[in-house]
């Protein structure tokens, strides 16, 4: 596990041909590690019949809604959380 709770991370903005579980709307956005879940089979190879090894660490990452949507119309404290695999995260500290 490369990251710990509270660390600032940025979601990689690369494009990826084929199945992956990183939502496009979060690519390039900066958030905070909220939970360190566990390691899970990599969905990018599982989707094509492989066993997903090596497993990839999975984190719950929290974002300020205003950082995700520049025109966000809700309240300033509103937050958005998503599970992101480690190989889609980079250090933002």
């Amino acid at each position, binding site marked *: 596990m490369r990251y710990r709770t509270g660390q600032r991370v940025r979601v990689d903005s690369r494009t990826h041909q084929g199945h992956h*579980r*990183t*939502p496009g*709307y979060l690519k390039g956005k900066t958030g905070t590690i909220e*939970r360190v*879940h*566990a390691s*899970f089979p990599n*969905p990018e190879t599982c989707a094509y019949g492989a066993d997903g090894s090596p497993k990839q660490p*999975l984190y*719950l990452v*929290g974002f300020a*809604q205003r950082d*995700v*949507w520049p025109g*966000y*119309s*809700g*309240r300033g*404290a*509103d*937050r*958005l*959380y*998503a*599970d*992101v*695999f480690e190989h889609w995260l980079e250090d933002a500290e």
Partner: protein
Amino acid sequence: MTGHDHEHEHAHTPIASGDEPAAAARVRALEELLVEKGAIRVEDVRQRIDWLVSRSPADGARLVARAWIDPEFKERLLADARSAALELGLDPGPSPVVVALENTATVHHLVVCTLCSCYPKALLGPPPDWYKSLPYRSRAVSDPRGVLAEFGVALADDVELRVVDSTADIRYLVIPRRPAGTEALDEEELSALVTRDSMIGVAHASRVETMSPPAYPPFSS
């Protein structure tokens, strides 16, 4: 089982019939092919469907009602919802991690899966159709207060709204707030207030006065 590596000279049964939606026809065609190639059996599909429709929000409601009356159970539920479900004899499903999210006077959670339709099916049953719809999946993250308003939930300005996009292997379940005036209710009565929608976060738990089943309109011939 016959092999299917021959040329397609023979006529197949028509894949789509009448008004069958394109997606349903595609799924049926895939299922027929997978069965024909021996990848799955019809019984496997039927068993999976039977399991899915045998699940219901009543199981999730038991978790919530117990958490409302037992603070120590609530702590265990928040720490590890999978273990807490097993403790009550409930099936937490195949996901190795289930997370319960507690709504409070100052925090409200809303669950969505923007990538597909991830949902704690073992504890809540099949997801509602709107949960799988593109409008819900896109607007729940970009305009969650607008979505909640359409479900009849007006959040106060000082409530922090936390949208959880279940993008991977974790399944999320909301613990709604216990309604006021329910101090005298027992666990079973409390669980009747815990609706499916309240465990997704698009509704509050029901109020006591709405507990009786909805009345049917008068029958007229």
